[in-house]
């Protein structure tokens, strides 16, 4: 089982890395880049909600800040895109810490915390949609200037590998977290906050570190999004769509497991692609599908795809 734990992620990442060797079709790569960006966003959510049990419905706030931070630092201040990307991540982490401090300090838990995160994301969406500095409703464009030092690549494959590299890095980080003291404390808080406190866990501090890390990762997903599509507005950056996809991917794949969000995002977008093929352009069909999937996942796959696979493996060994 221990060997499987490290082997599975390795195989998934290696398999994904090889795809561009077989196809260079733009639609395939676009699909994969987008799915991996959602995967990264879900990996961020997974730290706070999957391991820490703090269920956010507003990770769009961090996705959007990461994206806007990356875009505006370039467009308004002429900062190098790689540095801008780091700044976007930092901005998201900062916002995570502040939102976390305000809500955890006030003792908000469960659905109250969920609602507050939703509210923050919506406030950001409205503000960024109105302010002229952020480009208002027209949004911001990142100037097309294809050079690696500009975080823009002539080949889609290269960008895909960069995204995959970051996803793999976070995967590694998550697996290390699972075996660290911080991870043990975070899971303890999810399981029983009072008991954790009694055992000397600084609950507020651990939650703050978790939300900062979580926001940074989801912020990175936002930064990658804008760097790939070179356009951003408030409904993309802070829209409920990304909060929903983020938590759906993690839950369907398996919240609280390292590989879950990645598998979930790929499954979700694979299916999304399929229904698009079948149902064509019927508006809202993807949302109907997502809703149905979520119900099915919650009803029949308590620990997501990963949980299913684990049980199958154990069953197969008997």
């Amino acid at each position, binding site marked *: 089982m221990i060997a499987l734990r490290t082997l599975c992620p390795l195989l998934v990442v290696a398999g994904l890395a090889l795809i561009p060797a077989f196809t260079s079709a733009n639609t395939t790569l676009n699909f994969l880049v987008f799915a991996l960006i959602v995967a990264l966003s879900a990996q961020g959510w997974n730290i706070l909600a999957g391991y820490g049990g703090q269920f956010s419905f507003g990770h769009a706030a961090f996705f959007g800040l990461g994206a806007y931070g990356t875009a505006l630092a370039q467009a308004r201040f002429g900062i190098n895109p790689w540095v801008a990307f780091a700044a976007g991540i930092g901005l998201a982490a900062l916002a995570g810490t502040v939102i976390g401090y305000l809500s955890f300090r006030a003792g908000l838990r469960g659905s109250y915390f969920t609602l507050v995160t939703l509210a923050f994301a919506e406030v950001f969406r409205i503000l960024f949609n109105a302010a002229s500095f952020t480009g208002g409703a027209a949004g911001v464009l990142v100037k097309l200037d294809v050079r690696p030092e500009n975080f823009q690549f002539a080949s889609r494959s290269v960008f895909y590998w960069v995204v995959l590299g970051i996803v793999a890095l976070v995967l590694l980080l998550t697996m290390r977290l699972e075996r660290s003291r911080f991870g043990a404390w975070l899971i303890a808080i999810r399981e029983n906050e*009072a008991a954790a406190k*009694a*055992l000397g866990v600084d609950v507020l501090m651990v939650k703050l570190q978790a939300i900062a890390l979580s926001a940074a990762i989801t912020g990175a997903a936002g930064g990658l999004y804008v760097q790939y599509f070179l356009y951003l507005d408030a409904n993309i950056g802070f829209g409920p769509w990304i909060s929903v996809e983020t938590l759906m991917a993690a839950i369907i794949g398996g919240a609280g497991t390292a590989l879950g969000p990645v598998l979930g995002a790929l499954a979700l977008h694979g299916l999304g692609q399929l229904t698009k093929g079948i149902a064509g352009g019927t508006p809202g069909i993807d949302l109907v599908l997502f809703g149905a999937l979520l119900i099915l996942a919650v009803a029949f796959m308590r620990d997501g795809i990963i949980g299913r696979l684990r049980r199958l493996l154990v069953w197969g060994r008997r």
Partner: protein
Amino acid sequence: MLEVRALTKRFGGLVAVNDVSLDVPAGSITGLIGPNGAGKTTLFTLISGFETPTTGTVRFEGADITTLPAFRRARLGIARTFQIVQPFAGLSVAENIAVGAHLRHRSRGEAIRAAEAVAERVGLTQSLETPAASLTIAGRKRLELARALATEPKLLLLDEVLAGLNPSEIRDMLPVMRAIAASGVTILMVEHVMQAVMSLCDYIHVLAQGKHIAEGKPEEIARNSSVVEAYLGRGAASRLTGGTLNG
């Protein structure tokens, strides 16, 4: 080691703990008894930092800890168990105990090893890989004890760790508790199982309706008429001629 002075806790109009003072000397097993609703658990929440008192002070090893948050008190060496057990239900027994062990051990390997050693002391070695959610009541009580012990406390607050156990399970637990005390951990225990209190404790304090009504050695408490009345009602002591208490 622990000095409680004039501690009072009000919940709205209810005075759950009323002007209670008591000392727990280092190295002792001190008992805290009293009828249901006497305020024993509330006193524990004040000592462990889960609630702050309305008035009064708590001192630990000479330092005033009255307003210190619970996790800091745990780090100072005060561990508590919960009367209503609070396991990390989704984790195994070993992982549960390891959370406590992590307080003094950063690395996971060391924490797991320390957890296994603690499991040995409380008799949970057989169930290390069992999910905490599937333990029996006796197992859960042992787990509460093990987790608290894993934080390597100086003072252990035990809130009815014997409640819900059958007589033979209680008989198994007594030597475990004696061994913990012998290893140098000071114990303050709330317990309704009188034969356990009488055989384990060096000294006993009695609460009733929030007030500290008596203290003394076990045999003195058993003879104390106000204690008997607190449990059995006014006049009970005179009806029982020399009878001993039976929880």
